[in-house]
């Protein structure tokens, strides 16, 4: 995630806004490299989890886990949140778009929170069936994968909250780069969830 999220918006943003565009470009490019590198690292982590899953599946005690149907509703939520984020981007491009963009971001945030809450409910559903973390290897992987994903989604949620809250106060040049980085991360979270869902369906 970009460090611009943590930077106090007053000093650096204003300092940069006064600089020529080429310097701002460098700042934007730098934070954008950062987010892609971060996405790459997270991908590698989940690749490790996936390969552990595939290896583990080869052992004898592999049973079949029925995925809670709530997961599909959660998928709709997170994909919808990606859509609303894109609508926010479109709003941002318009002249006085910051206000409606912030509104769309708020909606993205709500859908993201609905996703997280839905994941929690899905875990409760499994618990009600007596399926816990250590019950069988399938459930272990399910909980670990969904938990790790949810943890990263929570980080994304805080980024979205910050973005929505601060969007109007930011200078324009800065706005776009922070938005870009948050969007890259958020879409990645959605894509990662789809991958994890398919992985769980296929392997668990």
């Amino acid at each position, binding site marked *: 995630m*970009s*460090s611009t999220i*943590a*930077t106090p918006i007053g*000093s*650096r943003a204003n*300092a*940069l806004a006064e*600089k020529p565009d*080429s*310097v701002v*470009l*460098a*700042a934007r*490019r*730098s*934070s954008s*490299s*950062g987010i892609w*590198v*971060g996405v*790459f*690292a*997270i991908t*590698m*982590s*989940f*690749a*490790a*989890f996936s*390969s*552990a899953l595939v*290896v*583990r599946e*080869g*052992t*004898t*005690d*592999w049973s079949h886990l029925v995925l809670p149907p709530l997961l599909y509703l959660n998928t709709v939520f997170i994909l919808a949140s990606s859509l609303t984020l894109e609508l926010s981007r479109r709003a941002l491009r318009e002249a006085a778009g910051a206000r409606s963009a912030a509104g769309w971001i708020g909606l993205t945030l709500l859908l993201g929170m609905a996703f997280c809450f839905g994941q929690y409910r899905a875990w409760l559903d499994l618990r009600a069936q007596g399926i816990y*973390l*250590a019950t069988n*290897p399938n459930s*272990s992987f399910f909980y*670990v994968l969904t938990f*790790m994903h949810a943890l990263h989604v929570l980080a994304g949620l805080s980024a979205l909250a910050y973005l929505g809250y601060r969007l109007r106060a930011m200078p324009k040049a800065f706005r776009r780069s922070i938005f870009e980085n948050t969007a890259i991360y958020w879409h990645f979270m959605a894509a990662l969830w789809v991958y994890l869902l398919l992985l769980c369906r296929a392997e668990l």
Partner: protein
Amino acid sequence: MQEGSVQEAHVHAPPEGFIRKYVFSLDHKVIGKQYYALALVAVFTGMILSWLMRLHMVWPNAKIPLLEMLSKNGAPGGIMTPEYYLSLLTMHGTLMVFFVLTNAPFAAFGNYFLPIQIGAEDMAFPRFNMMSFWTTFAAWVVLMLAFFIPDGPPIAGWTEYTPLSAVGKDAGPGMAWGASLWGISIAIFCVASLLGALNFIATTLDLRAKGMTLMRMPLCTWAWFVTSCIALLAFAVLFPACILLILDRHAGTSFFIPSGLVISDRVQPHAGGSPLLWQHLFWFFGHPEVYIAILPSMGIVSHILINSMRKPLLSAKVVIYSMMSIGFLSYMVWGHHMFVSGMNPMSSLAFSFPTLTITIPATVLTLVWLGSLYGSNIQINSASLFSLGFISMFVAGGVSGFFLAQPSIDIYLHATYFVVGHFHLVMGVASLFGVFAGTYFWFPKMTGRMMSETLGKLHFWITFIGAYCIFMPFHYLGLIGNVRRYQSFVDDFMAPYLGWHKFVTIAALITGAGQFLFLFNLIYSRFKGKPAPENPWNATSLEWSIPSPPPWNNFGGRHPIVYHDPYQYGVNGSKGDFVMQDSAEQVVPASGD
């Protein structure tokens, strides 16, 4: 990425106040020094642990003073128990590999010099940088806590193989909370390293000064860049492995523990896990990790040798491509740590091939160094001595790798002292020589004072001769069947070779004592050393164009412009036989070339 991208505006205000300046600093230079200090503490701790191990090996019933104070269970009456030997061994390995060899050449020097060498004011993400150091520090604290819990540190080795590392206290002393602290510490370390690697990559790609194309970066910068790419992928795999291990230990899962396991006469309540899975995950990280340890030193040594020889290497491009190939190939060889693990022998063949292939770029590098040295008039100082010593140690340690890379021989040599000799020479000693070289070379820049050359040379000769005395016998011992990680000799056939071990122990004590000379030199020179000029080595890279020590924003607000590569030596420059990288003067080859 755009070549020669524009300099970013200053990323943070000048620091005010003690805490901001020296503790929670955003300045990459302070963070680099903090990493170096942490590595210094870790290396001396690790060294003392190795002394304790060596003393126990040759005099198992000796009373070691103060040891009982450290651990009543581990050393009742000052006499080390066999299990405590394994605890010390585990902590020695963990401290050295993670907190010394990943920290010192990469995080410490990289943080300090990468931004300056590319002409930037700081790293791309200074806050992440600060978090990265303090997270590493937190990981170190958690690890050291293992010494002070009643049960002691874990006994499973720095590789913490499952299932013994995953079952908990049944596996032995230190395997209850000790192993959990290890897992938590390393998981925290992974996060810290990922943040650091991210910073290095973003900085190198985006914050280069005008004219600083990728091919014009100094070789040590390239080494740090390739290392950070490797680190990003490697630590991203170790982190999940540690999470799964912690879950197996505390949440009753069975990722790594098979069914029906009986340990300490107790059936373990787990089923269906794969111990081999841990080895795969760990070594997928573990092999790139050793290249993370060695690549920065390769870069530092290349950088220093060029300066000392007063002429460029035969081909900097070849060195860069070799480092990149090593980085790439490092991901394909992890199974060579697992030839005897019971995995499919065809896999062993598949891993042996790239392992032998990776020797090619390593050999190319060595040939470039040696070829460049041939006929050169190298100036001898502490830094160049350690650089030459690096080549010696790297070759000496590396050639044993050719043997270990072949499954047929490795079946015999695995887990013997042959392996211990191999990795200590090629990773421990060589990498550390790179750190020493870098310290002697860059100390004037970091502190504004020169280190004592006499002490430096003395330090070199003691360490060079001492390291060979310690680790060369290990190859022989391994060949005759001396198993590693044994606290004493259980086989009669080893009894005649106890004399070798005594020799090694004494060499280790002397060599270790020599390191205190270095420590003294470091601390004394920091306060009382001769004031250093801006460019005491007549070097060309950008760090030598700024004051010693550098101001908080490196270049004092100006944006350097780079006109050529950093290895313009042996030419007719206005200041001598070199032209600095940011000097606009035309490069005129020296007459007689």
